[in-house]
């Protein structure tokens, strides 16, 4: 390993804003030749914005980027490639209907007199793949290859230009352990050839097995740069979620009001419940009047659990019981019949109906459960809208305001209102406090507590450990799409959760080394 190589990429004071958000705020970032540099951070940390600025998808507002000491200013992915920065994106961004060879050379096919030289393309593709120790029929259609192979093809494409800096944006999210090990072998080889590699991932084990250095971002700002060997896992997690480790350890043991509710039958119980490629089989139960927290880093499988329970995805193993009876929930509509409600993480894509009013957004789920013909009267709709605007303190000039004109926190409250109007017995909240201001966060947490007291069962998903600790009677901890622990009552502390998340599993550690 050659972690003390000369700086290859130097980013100084990079700032990039979007309307209403400052996605990057004066970030410094240095990558040296011959190192694998992990870029870490939770959602909204600014990782993807930083990468998109480097690859020319976004234009930066201010700051400088130097590659080998020369200032660069790519305005498109193509210009970035010409500078020597190549990228492999999280979703395989290739053309599935074209051949492997063509995907490697698209946009830069060798031509003679304007005619594409298909033979040369195949040769070039074979050479690029050989560099990754991969033998593959390059005339195969890309979509007939496994995701892992497609990822390798994307890598080969990135290497086909004389790249000096390679950016891998969550390349492993859909690979199995053996495939990840293959990828790491290639990454190490490229590093030893002197390439600088930026590696974005949310898998802890992978960071520690392959990276030389770690840069942590949080809320668009640089937290720090550390040699991997000198940053214990716990420290890394603490920095990612914005806690001082001493502060974490000093935190008094937390005791939520943990009345014993265990003797009654759980409202919802799942056993061995899972879906291939999404979440490993999991056991979970939630009682009426209980908040169960789902903790874990981004990508650990929290949302996947919620989607299975709500019937958005179908489980391919295990069973689900509601009130002791085995049920099959194959669609959100079926879940709603069992009085389950689900506020999604992605408010914009999966929650709000942007061009409809607050009133219409609130009555939608209740109306849907009644079907189209039994329409709620306008008076009833107005009453519902007024009730929830008041009860949830939604700040709006009136119920006829379009929901898209509200702030994130108020949109979230409207969505909560939509589900509370259906009088659910289980409420699944996926990151209900994401991207909303502090005051609104506190109100939503207060609401969770009061709903619990009213006898609702609540499954609460949040990246903010504080909230999970504060609001949950029980916490289920996920890592790498598996359940890795469960804490209850007095055991629930941020420290305990972080230790559970950080503990490396023996099998994964050996598989990756």
């Amino acid at each position: 390993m050659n972690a003390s190589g000369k700086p290859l990429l130097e980013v100084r004071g990079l700032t990039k804003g979007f309307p209403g958000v400052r996605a990057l705020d004066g970030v410094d970032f240095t990558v040296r030749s011959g190192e694998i540099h992990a870029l870490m951070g939770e959602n909204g940390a600014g990782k993807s914005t930083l990468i998109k600025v480097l690859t020319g998808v976004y234009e930066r507002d201010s700051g400088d980027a130097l590659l080998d000491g020369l200032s660069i200013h790519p305005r498109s992915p193509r210009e970035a490639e010409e500078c020597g920065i190549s990228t492999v994106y999280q979703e395989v961004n290739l053309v599935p209907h074209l051949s492997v060879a063509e995907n490697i050379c698209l946009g830069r096919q060798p031509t003679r007199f304007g005619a594409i030289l298909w033979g040369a393309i195949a040769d070039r593709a074979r050479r690029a793949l050989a560099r990754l120790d991969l033998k593959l029929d390059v005339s195969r259609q890309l979509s007939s290859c496994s995701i892992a192979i497609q990822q390798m093809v994307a890598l080969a494409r990135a290497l086909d230009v004389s790249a000096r800096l390679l950016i891998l944006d969550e390349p492993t999210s859909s690979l199995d352990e053996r495939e990840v090990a293959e990828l790491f072998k290639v990454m190490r080889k490229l590093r030893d050839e002197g390439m600088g590699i930026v590696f974005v991932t949310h898998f802890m084990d992978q960071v520690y097995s392959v990276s030389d250095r770690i840069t942590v971002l949080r809320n668009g700002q640089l937290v720090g740069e550390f040699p991997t060997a000198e940053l214990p896992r716990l420290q890394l997690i603490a920095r990612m979620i914005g806690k001082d480790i001493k502060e974490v350890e000093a935190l008094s043991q937390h005791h939520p009001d943990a009345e014993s509710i265990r003797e009654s039958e759980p409202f919802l119980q799942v056993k061995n419940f899972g879906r291939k490629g999404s979440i490993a089989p999991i056991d979970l139960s939630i009682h009426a009047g209980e908040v169960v927290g789902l903790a874990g880093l981004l990508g650990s499988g929290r949302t996947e659990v919620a989607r299975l329970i709500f019937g958005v995805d179908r489980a391919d193993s295990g069973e689900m019981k509601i009130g002791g009876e085995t049920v099959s929930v194959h669609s959100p509509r079926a879940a709603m019949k069992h009085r389950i409600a689900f506020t999604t993480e992605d408010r914009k894509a999966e929650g709000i109906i942007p061009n409809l009013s607050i009133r219409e957004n609130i009555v939608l789920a209740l109306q849907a459960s009644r079907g189209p013909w039994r329409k709620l009267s306008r008076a009833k709709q107005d009453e519902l809208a007024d009730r929830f605007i008041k009860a949830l303190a939604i700040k709006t000039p009136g119920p006829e305001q379009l929901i898209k004109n509200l702030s994130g926190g108020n949109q979230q409250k409207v969505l909560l209102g939509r589900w509370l109007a259906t009088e659910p017995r289980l409420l699944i909240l996926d990151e209900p406090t994401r991207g909303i201001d502090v005051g609104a966060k506190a109100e939503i947490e207060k609401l969770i507590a009061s709903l619990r007291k009213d006898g609702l069962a609540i499954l609460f998903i949040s990246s903010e450990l504080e909230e999970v600790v504060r609001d949950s009677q029980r916490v289920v901890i996920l890592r790498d799409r598996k359940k890795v622990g469960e804490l209850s009552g007095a055991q629930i502390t941020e420290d305990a959760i972080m230790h559970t998340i950080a503990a490396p599993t023996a099998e994964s550690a050996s598989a990756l080394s």
Partner: protein
Amino acid sequence: MSLAGNLVFWAVYAAILFATRRQRIFWPLVALALLLLFNQLFTPGFFDLDVRDGHLYGARIDILHRGAAVMMLALGMTLVIATGGVDLSVGAIMAIAGAVMAQIAVAHGQSAPVAITGALAVALLAGAWNGLLVAGFGIQPIVATLILMVAGRGIAQLVSEGQIINFTEPALVFMGNGHFLGLPFTLTLVLILLAGFCALTRGTALGLFIESVGDNDTASRYSGVNARLVKFLAYLLTGLCAGIAGLVAASNIKGADANHAGLYFELDAILAVVVGGTALTGGRFYLVGSMVGALLIQTLTTTMYARNISADIAPVPKALVIIGVCLLQSEKARRTFARFLPKRRIPA
């Protein structure tokens, strides 16, 4: 009489404009007003109204009468477009419905109600077919309805055995030529359909579901809306509208012409909907807006006719309307043009 009558007309129109000044329908109404005003000033005889045999005649009545078929189509098309789809087959369904009605009435000698019921049943079947392809098989709406657009006219000719079937049955002729309360009966039909559609979409929650599915399909499904059923119903209703429009078109000429009935009407209907304020991407829909859109198109055609411009050239202004409306609705176009305009604060 004509001056006073015209003054009353414009006073009522101005009142309507004022009452709708904050609504989506305002701009289509303004466009229609400008076109009418042009005719008031420059087209002699355009604003004349005659009373013959107790029936009203005149260019404005003619617009209502001739625009009826597209207005009917636009009602169903509005719902389909609001769900984020489109139905290209309505013209073909018109031809089928006309042919079925004429064939039942003439070749099989059945009574008018039987002929009408049979034709509408076939039209509903056609709508259900489109709905099945779109909502059931998940085929893109343009592609799915293209099938019936291509095959439909052939089916209509098959039904009518390639002939134009003429009929004289009074009830059938009445639909497209009769008068009711001094006005063309087609207008009554349009108003009944419009009232029915308003009741169906606003009196039930169907309208809410259609708008929510068109605006955000995923979020609607996650909120428990049966998006497939909603889409299916939209195509089914469009089939019904196309069927009625087909009967009117056939009745108009007292015959079923499988080759020409409803030709290109699907495009006029789509245009009417878009002009009326419903976005082609789906979401909020405006049934009355679509009616105004259809009237605008018909007024454009009648204007050219009244000014002795060949009807063949009528597509040119129509094309300009399409591109203009597209540009008005395009976020990117508005931003581009905003750069050339003096800066003005736009309220959020």
